[in-house]
């Protein structure tokens, strides 16, 4: 028996790993290196700890995607898109909380950040498709 929470947990964990991987790659590109290992370690621990409440949001989105009258692949695309929207809203919220005025995606860095969220979500969900499809199967059979 697979639940929306367990699927959500997998997606969330993979998202965090991928985010850390990006930080690590950025660390390699930078000239100073000593602090990067420390930073990756911190990101690994704190990242998982801080972002764990997101499961409360990710799980209903996974559940909702299961209820859509579309093929499994389309539902997966929908899920990726709405996870991207969720992270984007969090990003805007954090910027507004920091007193920054958000005027849309203006700089190249912001656009790159947005695209990286899409790519990360795509990889995280796509690599979880087995359990996701199993969850969808369960939802479909419960409707029958």
């Amino acid at each position, binding site marked *: 028996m697979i639940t929306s929470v367990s699927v959500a947990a997998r997606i969330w964990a993979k998202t965090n*790993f991928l985010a850390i*991987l990006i930080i*690590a*790659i950025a*660390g*390699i*590109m*930078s*000239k100073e*290196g*000593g602090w*990067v*290992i420390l930073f*990756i370690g911190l990101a690994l621990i704190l990242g998982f700890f801080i972002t764990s409440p997101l499961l409360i949001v990710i799980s209903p989105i996974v559940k909702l995607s299961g209820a*859509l*009258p*579309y*093929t499994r*692949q*389309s*539902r*997966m*695309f*929908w899920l*990726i*898109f709405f996870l991207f929207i969720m992270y984007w809203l969090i990003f805007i919220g954090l910027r507004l909380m920091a007193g920054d005025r958000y005027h849309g*995606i*203006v700089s*190249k860095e912001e*656009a*790159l950040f*947005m*695209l990286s969220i*899409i790519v990360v979500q795509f990889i995280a969900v796509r*690599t979880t498709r087995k359990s996701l499809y199993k969850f969808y199967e369960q939802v479909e059979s419960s409707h029958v």
Partner: protein
Amino acid sequence: MNKDLVKIILVTAGAVLFNLVFWNEKLAINTVLFDAFLLSALFFLYPDARKSATVNWLLLGHLVSLTMVVIHNTDLSKISFVITLLLVAGFAEYTHRSAWFAGGSMLMNVVMVVASFGESFTINKRKPTKRKGVGRFIRFAIFPLILLIVFFLIYRDANNAFSDIANRIGAQLEIFFSHFFDFFSFQRLLFLLLGLLITGSILLKSKLDYFSTRETHMNDGLQRSRKSLRQKRSGAMFQFIEMIMGKMASGMMALKNENTTGIISLVLLNVLLLVVNCIDVNFLWLHFQYKPGLPVYKMVHEGTELLIVSIVLAMAILLFYFKGNLNFYKRNKWLKYGAYAWIIQNAMLVSSVFLRDYYYILKHGLAYKRIGVLFFLLMVLVGLVTVFLKIWSRRTNYFLFRVNAWAGIVILVLATTIHWDEFIAGYNLKRKNTVDLDVPFLLSLSDKALPLLDTNIVALQKRENDARLQNHDSQPACDTCYIEELKQRELQFVEKQKDLTWLSWNYADSYTRKYFRKKGLITSIQ
């Protein structure tokens, strides 16, 4: 050709066109190109829509809005263009009679656009290709990759020679990526995705037809329904009424009690409103005079918002009493008379609010909010007429909201045919000797008003300076500040125009540009 493949091609082509015509441009003549593509694609995908009278009327409204985007280029025309486009698509793709439900269906299209787009791909996908090897490779690579990164960082810090080589490779990569990103814009890629979402939302019909299914159960004519007490109690509204009325709301005489409460409420409200209307008739309609020393807003403008709220609330009260079986109650004659009197009195109140607005305009000239009040009052009048029709001929709330939505759309489309900024500037400047002009407000109007302001600015500045001298204003002297401000606006306009291509052509900007080309910028005034 396979219809799903056609959908993919059309949506992708639409996204590319969106990217080409709107990138770093404003909505103007480019909108015609994109709209022509969208409408052609829409009627190609849903050919039956061309036979629908509603779609044709909406299309007319949409084309009027589109023309106004090109001619006036106001925000209102752009809003109207978007709303009518969405409604054309909503009525073309789904079976609807109400604009509200069509709007709901379009919202569903927006929410489901990614799934709908994915669906076209999934259906078109042929034999599944084996990609197990790639997946396995990725899984095998994750941990070695992490270890590689960690040890790379350690060795780089520990070994200077290794660090030098790594830095050189890093620098080369940086140069490569910066060149690559100069050529390939990430913002533009996101803009392409936005185009994909917009085109997909308009062209791809969602599989969830919740709103069109709901609407099929809706009727214009009210039907008498018998509900058991248990069914009634499941509704939140009934629970609330029962909390106040107690057994009177649920017993055998419930309908009679509701009728009595309604009559009492309407009689009291009518008496109260009659007093208010009598005061207004005496003060505003018959004996209105501007009192010297007392600001006009104190006399007429204050409380206008509250009066508007009271009219809307009045309609809500009538909808509450005439929501169900009370419409069929044999002894509801007095309740109906009370409601009609209440509607007539509210129409009088609308006239009083109109007069307040009119007197304010006479004294201070036109402004957005004052024009907005006029449109709102027009909508309220339509609302009152439809509430009357609803009670008179036992119509449903669905009818009421449906008719009012259509009235709203007609008013919106008609409102786009006027360039309000230019109209405000023209009206106020024509009466500059009789109206208290708000020059900073006039200077904030859109670019189309610049020529009008330009021809009057010297006189306005002189008038303002004279007024300050007369009033012994303590503020620092400002002999040319309005002229300077207008000069800034004109320079900003010229700068903005430099960044735009023919795709952003519109009559309003072209008119302003031609005016300044002919006359020269305000710098000549100095």
